[in-house]
């Protein structure tokens, strides 16, 4: 798609020579792109970032930056801005000194330096805090300074390792907004690490879902959510219902799945290749339909029993017993015509076949 600004080619990494922490990583990041690495703890996100920044070397494979291999460039020559998880603001320097540091080591003149520092501080709305020490700032303020410091020397690539991990929800949302805004305004390329999926979805152009040292799926947020490529991604991103069964018929882009209790449903075959494969069928809670009128006449429906009804204000969240499982969730909008169900009630549910994806078991 885009010309690759950063490219990981068949990169592997092992710390101890026994286990691969990163297995065969192929990742191309376009210029100006905001790419998020999302994945559970220990999946190798930080390791990837560190290899890019130059603090770890790849055991195998090549990383290129703007077409040039960087394996042999020392970290300080890579010109990559980095925001660390704990901010890593130098405690013995004031905020302004922290910001001036990358300019000083680049031998930029004093007046230009001061001007750039002021501009960077204004950019993160911290203009009055230049004389403070990091310890005298709140978490969110420190975060902004760390961001400003990573940007002040105008790098083209900025890496951020869970920069919002320590902030409370509200501040986090503000900062997410500010970071994406800033990144787009400055046109910088951002590689962002998080294990918060909402953060990944709201901020990024593309998200790379990591698990077990591999990218499970690399796609834009909406694709990722609506068209997960495998059951890990489906489970990891957003809320998801799974039903296990066996493929009994494949018919172009529709297949028939017989669930373990004998019920038959339609699904889109994504990760199944042949009749007889075991599969996990994935369906989003908000795509489940309880009103038969809205379904196609030939659609398969399932019997369900209400196990729990939770009122959540804007939505209702209903837990159902379906096909032998009792963790099937349905979310419905709190609309005027929506009935509040009672536990024990017997209903029928269904969905559009294209919302139901047959994935690997």
């Amino acid at each position: 798609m885009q010309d690759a600004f950063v490219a990981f080619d068949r990169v592997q990494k092992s710390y101890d020579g026994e286990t691969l922490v990163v297995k065969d990583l192929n990742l191309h990041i376009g210029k100006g792109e905001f790419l998020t690495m999302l994945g559970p703890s220990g999946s190798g996100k930080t390791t990837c970032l560190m290899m890019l920044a130059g603090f770890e070397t790849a055991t195998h494979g090549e990383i290129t930056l703007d077409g040039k291999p960087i394996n042999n460039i020392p970290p300080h020559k890579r010109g990559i801005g980095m925001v660390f998880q704990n901010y890593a603001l130098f405690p013995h320097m004031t905020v302004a000194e922290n910001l001036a540091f990358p300019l000083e080591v680049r031998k930029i003149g004093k007046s230009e330096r001061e001007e750039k520092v002021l501009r960077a501080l204004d950019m993160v709305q911290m203009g009055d805090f230049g004389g403070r020490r990091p310890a005298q700032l709140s978490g969110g303020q420190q975060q902004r300074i760390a961001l400003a410091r990573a940007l002040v020397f105008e790098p083209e690539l900025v890496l951020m390792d869970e920069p919002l991990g320590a902030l409370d929800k509200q501040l986090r949302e503000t900062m997410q907004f500010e970071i994406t805004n800033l990144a787009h305004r400055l046109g910088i390329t951002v590689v962002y690490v998080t294990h918060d999926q909402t953060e990944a979805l709201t901020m990024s152009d593309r998200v790379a879902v990591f698990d077990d040292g591999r990218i499970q799926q690399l796609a834009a947020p909406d694709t990722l959510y609506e068209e997960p490529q495998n059951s890990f991604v489906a489970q990891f991103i957003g809320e998801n219902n799974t039903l296990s069964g066996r493929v009994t018929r494949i018919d172009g882009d529709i297949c028939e799945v017989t669930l373990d209790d004998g019920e038959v449903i339609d699904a889109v075959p994504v990760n199944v290749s042949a009749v007889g494969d075991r599969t996990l069928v994935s369906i989003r809670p908000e795509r489940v339909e309880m009103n038969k009128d809205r379904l196609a006449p030939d659609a398969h429906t399932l019997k369900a029993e209400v196990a729990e009804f939770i009122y959540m204000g804007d939505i209702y969240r209903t837990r159902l017993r379906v096909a032998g499982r009792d963790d099937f969730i349905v979310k419905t909008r709190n609309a005027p015509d929506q009935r509040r169900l009672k536990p024990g009630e017997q209903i029928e549910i269904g969905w559009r076949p294209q919302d139901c994806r047959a994935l690997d078991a």
Partner: protein
Amino acid sequence: MTDAATGNIGRAAADARRAEAEQTGPVMAADGRPLKQSLNRALRAQKLRALALIAPLLLFLLVTFVAPIFDMLFRSVENQITSETLPRTVVALEDWDAQDLPSQDTFAALAYDFMEAAERRIHTRLGSRLNYETTGISSTFRRSGRGIDDLGETQAEQFIDLNPQWEDPAAWVALMAAPDWIAAQADWAARADAADAADRPFDEAEPAFRLAGGIAATLPETADAYRSFATTIQQEDEDSPTAEEPWNTVYLALYRDLLRQPAATIAAYDGPQAALVQEAAGVAAGFEATDLPAFFIDMDDGWGDLKTWETIQTFSDPYTAGYFLAALDLQLTPQGIEMQPEEQQIYLMLFWRTIVLSLTIMGLCVLLGYPIAYLLSNLPMRTSNLLLILVLLPFWTSLLVRTSAWKVLLQQQGVINDTLVWLGLVADDARLALINNQVGTVIAMTHILLPFMILPLYSVMKTIPPSYVRAAKSLGATNSTAFWRVYFPQSVPGIGAGCILVFILSIGYYITPELVGGRTGIFISNRIAFHISDSLNWGLAAALGSILLILVLALYWLYDRLVGIDNVKLG
């Protein structure tokens, strides 16, 4: 936009809170008391319990640490020995102008003082004390202690010749003692006899001697000398004045009184033994006199030397700066404060050497310890723990063993010299002198104190996250810039703590300089130890110690000014 909105809300909330606080004044607890007061009450019990828990340690520290320090500070200025041993002489010397030998009266005062001091066997102590200031006084005092008995013998014989009553202790008691004492003494003697007869143990002491009321006005020196005699023999020998003939100096005092008191005063005396006194007064003028200065000089030439008297006069104050002056190579002369003679100056040089060598040792410890601590803090836990044990290993061997090992290594025929000669770096006839000099002290002490530098450094470096240096590098700093601008400043608290530890330990170090320092490598503490255990000049040792203490505090203050004491982290 979002930020500005939240900012406004935050500010408004803060304003509201402030306004609320201003309106209500002090916050009240549920029972209506001010909250602060309730809180204090609640905390008091806790504090008391905490205090009780540390009380044993506190007491221990007070007794073994704080008290000795104050005792030392006190000893360094204390000089009551002169005025306690020679009280009359000190008074008599107050107006002495140091031009000629003191007057007969001063010598008389010295005679009474010395007689009592000799009987109490404390004259030699004062002699040793004054000997620190002027050599030779010690022997003067010792010799005079033996001859003083005879002073006044001439007078005693003449009084006894005149009237044998003067030989009778009872006659003296009748003249000198207060009537109620005589009664109390008689009562005591009766009880003692009764106990003796009944074979009962009797350990009650004789009532303390009391002088008669009027006698001091008539015969002042005699009364004084007699009281001195009576109390001394009571206290020192458990003898009774009722059984002992007075010292010869008492007769000397009587002779001087009879000559010097106006005849009318003597004639007006109508107390006990008035006849005896007046009889003697009549003829005393014809008695053979004693030239007191001559007598003293005859005992020891020292008494003819103005220097002896000057020393007594100079050091007669109960508190003296003499020890401190001596500790700074100064001396107090009647002309004021002067430098000690060149060949006796030693302490300033020793203080200077102690400081310079301690700073050298401290610097070497930083240079050697910093890389080690850096390595330790950057290695994986397992390896660093193992290496840390190696750092601590010296603590598990005796200091003496380690120091002696250096002797083996450093001596002229030792391992290091042998190796250097073998390598051809040093000629066999020009082996390096590595021990019994400053080099030896510095090497051995650097080795011994190195752990005290490494440990605080290590514990501080351990807390510096690697992300700081990484951040610096990602911002474009080279390895050395990242180290000097980011890592090093954060390790300064550890350096500070290590330096303070090493410097303070080394400035008071004693064993190692003693063993490997030879003559040129010893520290001030070796001199202090010498004065404590060999020369027994505790005052000077205390003064040296106090100066050392002041020095350390001053350097501490300086450090606080330059680096800031909150910039010290021991872990």
